[in-house]
């Protein structure tokens, strides 16, 4: 350990909800995206699931909203070290979409991609079992464009760069393929509890 002279840090409460190296951003919700926020109307939004599936399919806004509603209430963690507690998102569980396309047994990973072309990779197991959503509401309101509205992927148990904003689709693969940040040095999985920030962590 390399102690920095005179650094004590902010007075801290030992918060079991805070992964190592994170701080509570409170009411702040910082925005970190590398691209221009797209102007994407709900009427122009589509979401596709294909790759290693029985029946590739594309949903539009209305069709996606016909699926059973599902909410997430809990915490989110960004790799730039802020966490946000007790957030509420509304949308549809990703399971609902996956059940309709029926993934092949060979499918092990996925690449999620945005209407901007941003990509991020995930093990399929992180997207199933009620752990991932397509979210279009935040705190009961439509999701703001700079936070990924009209709809984003939400995978709250991983660092938030995995929760692709302006989600356009998910392709199922039989191998892991690094996405945008992962090609730029970020970790392939990004588990905040293990501080998987950069490749090699």
């Amino acid at each position, binding site marked *: 350990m*390399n102690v920095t002279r005179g*650094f004590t840090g902010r007075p801290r409460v030992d918060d079991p909800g805070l992964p190592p190296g994170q*701080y509570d951003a409170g009411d702040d919700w910082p925005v970190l995206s590398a*691209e221009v926020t797209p102007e994407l109307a709900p009427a122009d939004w589509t979401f596709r699931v294909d790759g290693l599936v029985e029946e590739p399919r594309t949903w539009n806004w209305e069709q996606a909203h016909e699926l059973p509603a599902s909410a997430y209430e809990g915490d989110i963690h960004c790799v730039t070290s802020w966490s946000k507690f007790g957030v509420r998102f509304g949308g549809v569980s990703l399971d609902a979409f996956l059940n309709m396309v029926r993934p092949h047994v060979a499918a092990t990973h996925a690449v999620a991609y945005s209407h901007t072309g941003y990509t991020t990779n995930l093990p399929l197991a992180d997207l199933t079992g009620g752990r991932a959503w397509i979210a279009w509401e935040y705190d009961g309101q439509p999701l703001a464009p700079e936070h990924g509205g009209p709809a984003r992927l939400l995978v709250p148990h991983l660092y938030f760069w995995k929760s692709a904003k302006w989600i356009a689709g998910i392709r199922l693969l039989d191998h892991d393929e690094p996405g945008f940040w992962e090609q730029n040095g970020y970790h392939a999985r990004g588990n905040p509890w293990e501080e998987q920030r950069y490749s*090699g962590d």
Partner: protein
Amino acid sequence: MTETFTPPTRFAVPGRIAVSDQAATVWQTATITEIRRETPHAATFRLAVPDWQGHLPGQHLMLRLTAGDGYAAQRHYSLASAPDDSGHIELTLDHVEGGEVSGWFHTVARPGDRLEVRGPLSGFFAWPGDRPALLIGAGSGVVPLMSMVRHHRARGLSVPLRLLVSVRSPEELIYGREYGAETTPVFTRSAPHGVPVGRMAAAHVAPLLADQPPGGWEAYVCGSNAFAEHASRLLVSAGQPVDRIRIERFG
């Protein structure tokens, strides 16, 4: 099946510069060798990092301060210095009110103090000096852009480079004395005599886009999220293609 997936849409900011994963994972000890005041709220910290592998202008690093009880705080900071082989790098930090890390730098740090860094990180905001660059920053958002300007000068590059910097007042303009003909400051609260006061607007961006070098500009926008949103919209309305706009948001 080993298909390589390419999304149907082009990503606005292809990461075209390969970065070393190796450097990103190793924590190195850095020693403060010099502190220079830039403005009442910002100072530059020169660090000796003997094993620094070098960086490209626009890249940032991760910095870590550790308390006696093992608590550690990590933050991202852009590299202010141009790449060189002196074994030193420079960071410029704003003093954020109540800030844990910037607070230590501005009230405790002195030459000889040691901390840890890892990097350089991220290739998408990097500018190797190859394409004409239109740089737009506000506040401490000028830090990575200044690394580009310094690189341009140090290498005597002839590729066109322009910098638009938005700041409240002349006193708060970081690196104020270093700018040359490439830079247009925009003052939002108070300006030197005869210079207009006001927000960055289409009128600042339009002439630069009207006067494009062959092949067009690669735009780099850096600052707070609110500023990044504003500036990137100005660029898009002025006709800059979205896939030639790179944005670094400080949060």
